[in-house]
């Protein structure tokens, strides 16, 4: 019986992109369904009644929710298809999970500054956000990928922020390339992997989404 794989997604979402990247690097065929978040589909509401959020992977009618949970699921189900995303070594695996969770939490806590108007709140948020970029730069070090020599789970988790870098740079008037050269090189290295670059949202698209939504929030 052929696998039926559906991904309920939202194009600019960093979380949705993780599922897209994982499916693409594993070479899994799937049906992509773009959700209108103002008018969520019946399938989304039924598949994720707890959070009602994307991404949701529906595999042979079984829904899997939560971007990190989805990526691990994909890695386990399609374990015979390379690359293996989670490290095999238990300690490395724990570290990858820990860092992915930690950075996600921090970005969620501080990332809202791009929605604030100019002022103290925005500056404070931007400062907190910049700290995370510093930590990511330091964590990467001289490794080609966060996972070491090969693209892995932590790279899937973090590369999906990169389409948003242009938006952060424009809002914050700073350059990620200049200040975080290792991180920038890593992004370029990831984009050389075709299945990664075709899964990530286009940065201009993301910026347009952001500025349209920001105008709406301002009531313009």
């Amino acid at each position: 019986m052929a696998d039926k794989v559906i991904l309920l997604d939202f194009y600019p979402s960093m979380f949705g992109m993780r599922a897209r990247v994982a499916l693409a690097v594993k070479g899994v065929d799937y049906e992509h369904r773009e959700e209108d978040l103002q008018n969520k589909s019946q399938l989304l509401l039924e598949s994720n009644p707890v959070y009602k959020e994307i991404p949701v992977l529906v595999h042979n009618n079984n829904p899997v929710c939560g971007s990190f949970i989805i990526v691990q699921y994909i890695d386990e189900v399609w374990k015979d298809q390379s690359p293996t995303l989670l490290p095999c070594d238990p300690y490395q695996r724990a570290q990858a999970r820990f860092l992915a969770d930690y950075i996600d939490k921090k970005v969620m806590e501080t990332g809202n500054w791009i929605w604030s108007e100019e002022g103290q709140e925005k500056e404070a948020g931007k400062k907190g956000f910049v700290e995370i970029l510093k930590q990511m730069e330091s964590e990467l070090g001289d490794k080609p990928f966060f996972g070491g020599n090969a693209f892995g789970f932590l790279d899937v988790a973090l590369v999906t922020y990169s389409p948003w870098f242009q938006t952060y740079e424009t809002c914050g008037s700073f350059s990620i390339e200049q200040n975080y050269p290792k991180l920038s090189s890593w992004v370029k290295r990831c984009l050389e992997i075709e299945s990664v670059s075709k899964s990530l949202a286009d940065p201009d698209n993301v910026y347009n989404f952001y500025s349209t939504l920001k105008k709406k929030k301002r009531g313009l």
Partner: protein
Amino acid sequence: MGEVKLLGGLGFSPYVNRVEMALKLKGVEYEAIAEDLKNKSPLLLQYNPVHKKVPVLIHDGKGIAESLIIVEYIDQVWEGPSILPKDPYQRAMARFWAKFIDEKCISATWKACWSTGEEQAKSKDESVEALKFLEDEIKGKKFFGGDNIGLVDIAANFIGYWLPIISEVKGVQLLTEEDFPNLWRWANEYCSDNFVKEILPNKEALVARFKSR
């Protein structure tokens, strides 16, 4: 297999207890080190520099932090009863519910017990909504893990044991038999299980702890 140490608190933390549960399930010998969180040891700061919190598992000189990550690590490293299901979909569901408990249940129910006024009313509503999902999930099952205790049961230790105790101390009714009959039944089943009850902290000590807050 290498030396195992568990940096814990003074015996009151449900997060540390999760790790103790997992270690005992696998029959792992370990050294329990009690941390005074008001005066953190160099060991804690060395092995969990990011959060500086307990629990931290130190195995073979390497530190692992965050209770659910530690529990999965233990499941992967040591033989013995499986804590996570073997089937990938069941594993994904177990991880989902464990995360849901951490993200939605614990903070809402804790706030509902300790806050007042409007904040308490809001937290109570959030708690009821969250507990309803768990109520549905446990229906027809002895444990969240099925016939045996699994990741979600271990993650739900706060709901099953700590919450009823805090509720009693604070006089805030949340997990009642009337409102959540299945979850109530699970809580009693879990906490009276012969294996589990030896590992849960002493009730009187917890009551005293919460009364003194």
